[in-house]
């Protein structure tokens, strides 16, 4: 599949934003994070900026971005529509939580309920994003049970790294924040490994003989394509990356997304707050770049069944 950069940026930025929002919505009411206006403003501000920036960027791949509002109408059948509805719905409790936190310095009672609701809606949005891909049987690598958990786990893990950074930024050094990052990163790593293993092992069940219905006459070989230059279907669905390159890029993605941030978070447990801030920033940058690469690979490695009409032997 052709990697659409606006969508890759969207899921990376919004994923981290929703992850941070989930943690703030739950940990704010629990009193694990400072209930000051400043922390509320910086924390929720960063979360909603990432979410909004991502959502706006996602409209850049549309042929008609000005009609994007129409995408809110078909939530009965479409996961993309559900994602749109869930993403907008999240703003309501998140906004109310923000009012309580920033202006009243309160995250209890009604505002606590709003925090939990914001977290639930944010998880819902991440699930919808994953389901857009997981619900497509035409793409073997995506149509599997690990895709949705990976989107949720990576959102939480990058959110936890951001939270770690924010806490140090306001001068609060905690042991649980790096630990939370390590645990969520480990969970995401495990799920992503399972997802890759599953995609690699999945049987290529479709053949050109099957697709054309001509297998009864013997082996089917493409003779003439319908046109001289690649068409839309081939440009969009025919993107292909060499297996060797993919393996190398996967290793780089694992290093950036998981290994470096986990080691850095472990170091933060030992280091003082001055160097800790730099370390936390490094972990965020590394994981951000890693998730961007992981999402790029998610597209580049995915094979679409239609390409067997265009000469791929199986899909």
């Amino acid at each position, binding site marked *: *599949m052709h990697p659409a950069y606006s969508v890759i940026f969207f899921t990376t930025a919004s994923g981290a934003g929703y992850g941070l929002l989930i943690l703030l919505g739950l940990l704010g009411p629990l009193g694990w994070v400072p209930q000051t206006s400043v922390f509320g403003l910086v924390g929720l501000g960063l979360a909603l900026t990432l979410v909004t920036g991502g959502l706006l960027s996602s409209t850049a*791949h*549309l*042929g*008609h*971005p000005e*009609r*994007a509002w*129409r*995408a*809110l*109408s*078909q939530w*009965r*059948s*479409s*996961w*993309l*529509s559900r994602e*749109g509805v869930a993403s907008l719905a999240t703003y309501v409790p998140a906004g109310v939580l923000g009012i309580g936190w920033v202006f009243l310095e309160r995250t209890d009672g009604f505002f606590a309920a709003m925090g939990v609701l914001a977290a639930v809606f944010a998880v819902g949005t991440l699930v919808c994003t994953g389901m*857009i891909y997981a*619900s*497509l*049987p*035409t*793409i073997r690598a995506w149509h599997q049970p690990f895709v949705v958990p990976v989107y949720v786990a990576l959102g939480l893990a990058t959110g936890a790294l951001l939270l770690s950074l924010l806490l140090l930024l306001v001068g609060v050094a905690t042991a649980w924040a790096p630990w939370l990052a390590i645990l969520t990163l480990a969970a995401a790593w495990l799920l992503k490994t399972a997802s890759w293993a599953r995609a690699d092992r999945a049987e290529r*069940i*479709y053949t*050109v003989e*099957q*697709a*054309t*219905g*001509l297998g*009864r*006459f*013997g*082996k*089917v*070989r*493409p*003779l*003439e*394509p*319908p*046109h*001289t*230059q*690649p*068409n*839309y*279907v081939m*440009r*969009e*669905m025919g993107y292909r990356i060499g297996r060797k390159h993919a393996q190398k890029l996967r290793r780089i993605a694992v290093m950036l997304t998981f290994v470096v941030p986990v080691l850095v978070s472990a170091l933060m447990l030992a280091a003082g707050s001055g160097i800790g801030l730099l370390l936390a920033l490094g972990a965020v940058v590394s994981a951000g770049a890693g998730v961007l690469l992981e999402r790029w690979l998610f597209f580049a490695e995915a094979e*679409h*069944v*239609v390409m067997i*009409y*265009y000469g791929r032997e199986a899909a």
Partner: protein
Amino acid sequence: MTTLPRSTARKLGLVIDLDTCVGCQACATSCKEWNTGGYSAPLTDQDPYGADPHGAWLNRVHAYEVGEGAQSRTVHFPRSCLHCETPACVTVCPTGASYKRAEDGIVLVNPDTCIGCKLCSWACPYGAREYDYADGVMKKCTLCVDRIYNETFAPEDRIPVCVRACPTGARHFGDLGDPASAVSQLAAERGGFDLLPETGCKPVNKYLPPRPRRDATAASAAATGVSANSGDEASASARFFAWADKVLSR
């Protein structure tokens, strides 16, 4: 609405004969010509006179070589929207621009509400939907919805333009929901099949397989899966029919 109708009154579609298609591209070019002025207008091209010309076409004719050696054959393979009974492209549409008509089963895109997210093209296993890079919306076969009900046309012209243009009669149009219709009868008689039934999209369009080769009856019978009994007592009749077929084919 992108939720599907429970059932459609009719199932309009095409029956495409892979035996008689000669790959002349008349269906594809007439489709492009009609649809760049009809419902799907404009059906744009990019870099049409440059080094990398491409554009939205709603019908594309592949050619495959099938089988080995003397038994191999060229099969021309037109591919367009199959107007599925459960089209995956429709239910994924976030805006409701994609829909399946309850009255005749035609799958259409409303060009005024499509946002060009391309998700429908990801969902379709058949590559039936193409993005129009200039128009910013998805284009697909309309089954010439702007011809088949057009009462200003002579009755013989009220068929999809690809069917009208086909010089070998390899394309047939009709109601595949009515078992008594000519297209249903033809599909039943010739063993019409669905493309990739495994995907569960339940295509309405049917493809007719190439007929067995006339000059090598026994071998082609084996290739088509019709068992030519090996053994001496059966081969006498098989040889007779092979001889009869050869004589009658002259």
